[in-house]
């Protein structure tokens, strides 16, 4: 897998007259985990939606293997590129198995609604995410972490080389955030998928990504491996955050420790 390539060229995105992303050019490294970070309203989710062809650019384009993604047949794109929207909701009573099976949609037709390929892929996706035991349960009766795993299983059953995740850890507690990101990491490591996600938690973004794209006010400030990118200066410039960047004792990567107004020890220099 991972022979597919995504690039963005002079992308301008907006809703109505409001420009959210203004002239963005970048290349997503294949077979790696890329995370887009930036302050609220910087256009990171909007950018991800454009990559997923959920939003049509005002100008510029997203290229999938050199072709404009908006000019391709949406069903063909769906066989290469999967997207999990921000906090999706399943219809009441829909079982995990039925949800995950919908991931097979681009591979199915009206006559061929449940082939043996569909069956094996769905089963494999359920097992990989540890959701097989819960397959007969309605999605709305699951905990937040289980629910997110069910949705990731659906995107997995779609069998796409590229997987886009819009804030997959929203509303989850820290333990479940780590659980979901471990799963994402596993998909990348075991199945060699290209992953692009939007995350809010900077330390988790640093920990789980090979490549970071840092955005501010609709533009890319910088992009590259987290080790080289994350500095106290960058965090001040982009997020307006005073912090110290230490070395994470667990991963050896940068770790951000924010400095608040009143809660720091007397030795810390503001």
């Amino acid at each position: 897998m991972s022979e597919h390539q995504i690039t963005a060229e002079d992308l301008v995105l907006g809703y109505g007259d409001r420009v959210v992303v203004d002239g963005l050019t970048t290349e997503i490294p294949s077979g790696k985990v890329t995370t887009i970070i930036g302050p609220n309203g910087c256009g990171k989710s909007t950018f991800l939606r454009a990559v997923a062809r959920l939003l049509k650019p005002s100008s510029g384009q997203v290229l999938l293997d050199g072709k404009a993604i908006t000019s391709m047949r949406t069903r063909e794109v769906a066989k290469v590129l999967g997207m999990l929207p921000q906090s999706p909701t399943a219809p009441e009573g829909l079982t995990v198995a039925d949800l995950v099976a919908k991931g097979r949609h681009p591979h199915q037709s009206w006559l061929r609604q449940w082939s043996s390929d569909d069956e094996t892929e769905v089963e494999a996706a359920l097992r990989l995410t540890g959701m097989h035991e819960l397959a007969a349960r309605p999605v709305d009766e699951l905990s937040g972490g289980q629910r997110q795993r069910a949705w990731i299983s659906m995107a997995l059953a779609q069998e796409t080389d590229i997987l886009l995740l819009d804030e997959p850890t929203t509303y989850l507690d820290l333990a479940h955030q780590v659980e979901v990101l471990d799963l994402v990491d596993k998909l990348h490591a075991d199945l060699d998928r290209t992953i692009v996600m939007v995350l809010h938690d900077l330390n988790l973004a640093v920990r789980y990504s090979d490549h970071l794209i840092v955005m501010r006010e609709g533009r890319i400030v910088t992009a590259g491996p987290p080790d080289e990118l994350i500095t106290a200066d960058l965090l001040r410039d982009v997020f307006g955050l005073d912090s110290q960047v230490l070395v994470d004792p667990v991963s050896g990567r940068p770790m951000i420790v924010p400095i608040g107004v009143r809660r720091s020890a007397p030795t810390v220099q503001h």
Partner: protein
Amino acid sequence: MTTTLVPGRPRFGRGPLTLVWRPRLVVVDVALLVLVFLLVCLNVGRGDYPISVPDVAAVILGGGTDAEHFIVWDLRLPRSVVGLLVGAGFGMSGAIWQSITRNPLASPDLLGITAGASAGAVAVIVFGGTAFVGGAIGVPAAAMVGGLLAGVVIYLLAWRRGIEGFRLVLIGVAVNGILLALTNWMLVVGEIWDAQEATVWLNGSLNGRGWSDAVPAAIALGAIGAVALASTFQLSALKLGDDTARALGVRVQLSQSVLLVASVLLAAMCVTAAGPIGFIAFVAPQVALRIARTSGPPLLASALTGAALVVGSDYVARVLLPVELPVGIVTTAIGGPFLMYLIIRTNRRLSR
């Protein structure tokens, strides 16, 4: 032959033709079909010359005496067939709207589509005799145009980078109110006898319906229903929301438009044939999904439930009540409480 690798999703068929085997849904569909047939026989059997249910069944299936044949086929059956078709159409129409918007309140009778069809029809009944342009096109066409117009207006007003259920319901309820007011205004300003005729029609009635009503309704239901049933595969993806459906390769705008137009045409066709029979489009899909225990309203079962409700209500209206009432009054009186009962019962089962 079936195999099961994924819990709850046995595979049926092989090669190019494969489906998920859902025994409960099949049993429910067959049972509803039998129920509708029995209700039609029961309804046809009652009248000045009573015929037993087995005899009616025998006549419908090709037996019986000449007299029975005449009474059943020529006199009584068209009324039940119109009821059946109208119920099925309303049921399917409601199931489509409720599935796409994922909101049980979004049914054509609550959103003003039925009211649009009614306003069109009443305009022709009330102003038909005058120089008003509507006079030339007749009640059926006016109802069709009114329903479609209401549907388009609601869709356009509610569209904002996609259709969002709650916004659609609010706009639909407002449009419904405006159209009801318009209809009332026409009844007030119209001639008293025209207004009376319109009022009976507005309550939804199967009185005096013949094959000339049944045949066009059957053709319309067959054609539109086939389109709708063929779209169920796309519908199952649309139920996950616009973004997810698009990510799965569904052309959301196109599929949604096809289904909503089909749904509006179905509702308008039903109003044309029998008036705005209350509550069926809202109740039938909700009843069907609770009997079949599916996550959204199942189209075929919703249509069959609608048919059973209308034919059953017609029997109640004609036979069980001391005064013969328009069927729409009975469907509303039966449908509402029945839905409440189902909701309370299923809640209890869940919380136990």
